[in-house]
């Protein structure tokens, strides 16, 4: 599909068991992340974005099970690694920024110590590690970094804490960075700054980024490849320009229409909605998963699952219309 | 009619949950056993629990004396059965009175003016700061040892437990939206208390009371063991232990069989209380 991918996800399906029911959270996911590229994943909450990320990190809750598929990172299957080997991948080759900066740092350990702790693999002097921590903090724009090493997370604002989290990944110099809605919990003005920091980070370390968001504007700005997820499946994926200007899947179309930026620009100023509810992932209907909410569904949609069709180079969609 | 149905449904639901907790069932069985023996004590005893037969002193368990005899030749089995009545009386009376007082003080503290709340909290803290046994001993010295004294002491030291719990619950309710809107619509204080707050604090109170019963039983037995509780020769479990302790080198049986019902009963009530809390307290109810 794309040349030299860092990470390849093939036919990944994940299930949860909850209250004697099986929730089929992810089904047949295929996704490549190109080296040095930025892939955006968009979709409503509950569409399986977080499950996808946690599958890559192998940090899924104990009640979940990988039913099929494989994730290949730098020519190694992540599912075949021992826990110990996986641990040396996390934070070293694959790093992650979480959604809520207010709760992702340990509240009783100083920020400096936490920045030093992530370097535990390096056998350099503590002084060196400390200097790295200071450099990283100044780089993400935290003033007076050296003095603030001994501060605790609650003494920083939310935006500052997200910068600290970015500084952490900066120190780790990962090959792949996963950012799980890193700006959702922040103000709009901070969002711009954080995105800028991420771009800067990528420029420096040439890492690949998997960026999860439901903010389409940010995705369009930051990413060069976009994946649209719905109810545990990928419905459309493609290069950012193709997808935004030539969107195919009815769900992806609706999603783009819902983007506030477009609504403000349009004449009607009316928020479109998608009628109906997400299908029950514990009891999936046959056919296309979006058929119950789709405005252009026809007979075949209720009975047959659509297969993935390539509509242009790198741009594919799963819909019977194409 | 509908009310009875609702209550019945509640009981059935509790039973359905409890059935899946083996420890809760064990606890329930023990509790039923102890309450049963307290109620039917007169029929269950073999001989008069205070009847002496000096010739038969320090007997090991036998057919005539299922749990042996003490230093005066009294039948330990009959004394244990009679003792269950004392223990249950003390527990039920003390817990219900202190829960009642705690309920009133707690609600008053929760909805009353700030100065009242503060003085209540100070009162609770002060009562709690007495080392329990020392406090009990001081009181016994003053008004003399008896079952009433023990019940009185237990009431006083248990009030803060109930009071604090009710206060917290009341405050949470008071700040909840539905009560706030009632206040905004001009509902009167007594109405709020009776209709909303009281029914909502009863659940937690019941759980606390179930958990407090073993503490009370231990307290009664402990004070009687020290010789400051129920007056001998009345057969309280603590008195059986006291006698057994004095003659520990002559026979181990009074000590063994005086202690066993205490451990059994406290464990029974605790296991039952724990399971009930899991069932009744929605915040702690396990996802299943």
């Amino acid at each position, binding site marked *: 599909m794309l040349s030299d991918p860092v990470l390849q996800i093939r036919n990944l399906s994940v299930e949860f068991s909850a209250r004697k029911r099986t929730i089929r959270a992810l089904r047949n996911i295929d996704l490549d992340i190109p080296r040095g590229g930025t892939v955006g994943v968009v979709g409503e909450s509950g569409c399986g974005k977080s499950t996808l990320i946690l599958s890559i990190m192998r940090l899924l809750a104990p009640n979940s099970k990988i039913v099929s598929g494989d994730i290949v990172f730098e020519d190694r299957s992540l599912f075949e690694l021992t826990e110990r080997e996986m641990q*040396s991948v996390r934070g070293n080759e694959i790093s992650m920024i979480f959604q809520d900066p207010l709760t992702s740092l340990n*509240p009783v350990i100083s920020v400096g110590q936490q920045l030093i702790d992530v370097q535990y693999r390096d056998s350099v002097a503590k002084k060196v590690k400390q200097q790295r921590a200071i450099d990283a903090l100044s780089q993400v724009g935290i003033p007076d970094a050296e003095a603030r090493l001994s501060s605790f997370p609650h003494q920083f604002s939310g935006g500052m804490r997200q910068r600290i989290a970015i500084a952490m990944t900066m120190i780790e110099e990962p090959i792949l960075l996963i950012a799980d809605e890193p700006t959702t919990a922040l103000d709009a003005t901070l969002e711009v700054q954080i995105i800028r920091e991420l771009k800067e980070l990528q420029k420096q370390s040439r890492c690949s980024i998997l960026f999860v968001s439901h903010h389409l504007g940010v995705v369009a700005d930051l990413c060069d490849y976009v994946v649209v997820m719905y109810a545990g499946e990928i419905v459309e994926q493609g290069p950012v320009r193709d997808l935004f200007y030539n969107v195919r899947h009815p769900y992806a179309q609706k999603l783009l229409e819902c983007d506030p930026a477009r609504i403000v620009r349009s004449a009607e100023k009316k928020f479109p909605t998608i009628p109906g509810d997400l299908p029950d992932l514990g009891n999936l209907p046959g056919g296309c998963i979006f058929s119950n909410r789709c405005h252009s569904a026809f007979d075949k949609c209720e009975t047959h699952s659509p297969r993935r069709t390539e509509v242009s180079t790198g741009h594919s969609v799963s819909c019977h219309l194409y | 009619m509908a009310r009875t149905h609702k209550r019945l449904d509640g009981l059935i639901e509790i039973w359905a949950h409890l059935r899946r907790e083996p420890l809760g069932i064990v606890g329930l069985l023990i509790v039923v056993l102890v309450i049963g023996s307290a109620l039917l004590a007169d029929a269950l005893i073999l001989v008069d629990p205070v009847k002496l037969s000096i010739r038969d002193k320090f007997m090991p368990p036998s057919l005539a004396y299922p749990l042996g005899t003490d230093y005066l030749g009294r039948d330990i089995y009959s004394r244990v059965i009679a003792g269950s009545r004392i223990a249950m009386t003390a527990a039920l009376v003390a817990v219900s009175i202190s829960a009642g007082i705690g309920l009133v003080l707690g609600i008053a503290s929760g909805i009353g003016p700030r100065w009242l709340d503060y003085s209540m909290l100070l009162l609770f803290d002060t009562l709690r*700061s007495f*080392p329990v046994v020392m406090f009990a*001993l*001081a009181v016994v010295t003053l008004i003399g040892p008896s079952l009433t004294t023990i019940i009185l002491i237990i009431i006083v030291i248990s009030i803060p437990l109930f009071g604090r719990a009710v206060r917290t619950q009341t405050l949470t309710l008071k700040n909840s939206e539905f009560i706030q809107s009632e206040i905004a619509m001009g509902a009167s204080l007594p109405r709020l208390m009776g209709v909303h707050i009281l029914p909502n604090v009863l659940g937690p109170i019941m759980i606390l009371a179930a958990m407090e019963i073993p503490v009370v039983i231990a307290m009664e037995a*402990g004070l009687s063991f020290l010789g400051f509780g129920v007056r001998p020769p009345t057969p309280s479990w603590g008195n059986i232990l006291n006698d057994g302790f004095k003659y520990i080198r002559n026979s181990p049986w009074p000590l063994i069989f005086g202690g066993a019902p205490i*451990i059994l009963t406290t464990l029974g009530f605790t296991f039952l209380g724990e399971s009930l809390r899991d069932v009744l307290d929605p915040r702690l109810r396990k996802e299943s």
Partner: protein
Amino acid sequence: MLVYVLKRIGLALVIIILAVTLLYLMIHAVPGDPATVMLGPRATPELIAQLHQRMGLDKPLPVQIISFFGRVLSGDLGTDVFQEKPVAGIIISVVPYTLILVGAGIAWSLALGIPLGVFSALRPDSWIDKVAGILSVAFIAMPAFVVGLYALLLFAVTLGWFPVIGGGEGFAGQLHHLVLPAFTVGLGWVGYLARIVRASMLEVLAENHVRHARAHGLPQRVVHYQYVLRIAILPAVTIVGIGIGAMLSGVVFAEIIFARPGLGKLIFVAVQQRNFPLIMGTVLVTTTLFVVATTLSDIVNALLDPRIRERL
């Protein structure tokens, strides 16, 4: 922070004063004053009047209470009318025994309870966790004095492994004498601590920052014992203060069952003699120790948690 510490100490003082006043009032509210109770029914009016004067009971109640506090502050807890010795001296001579017992009880319950809680929390719902859970509840529920009596019967009287009475001579002897009483007073707290540590450990393990630390590849060992335990231990610290307070009271049974000198044994004998100055003195000292312990644990807790430390 300093304000918090001062406030907390102030509250502690208020509570101690209130508690003692309450006790004093209670003693004087009951029918028959202490002098009559102490001397028994056959005391002559002259004797009673004499004792009244010696104990200061002839003055009005508020004056009595104030002068009582005045004397307490100058270290005078009154005179034991039976032994003709100062109460303060008698109490000070036995306090170390009680403190050692409480210390030993807390020490072994911490040493066993915390690892047990951590161990269970890291294997939730395993059979080991379930057994540990049942044991914890059982340890908490079983009255300490019955545990003590059974221990005495089994290990001292029947098996003869440990001495039956006394405080022991020399370090080894004292230690030998300490085992069973410390077991008795600490067993329930093993259960409490295990439960509290397990619960708070599970709570912290579910917090976001734990997943964050794992996502950054920190070793299991670091995550569990530094990142999680450091937070999970805080409620245990608070409870230790309460534990010390409760044990001060629980030692009464252990000291009587194992015939150890100490505050509990002292008040037991004083109650039998109706020795009011001694009773008052002992209750005052234990109440103070109790309040000091809980206050200290609150302050230590605030110091350990930077979130609280900051807010104060």
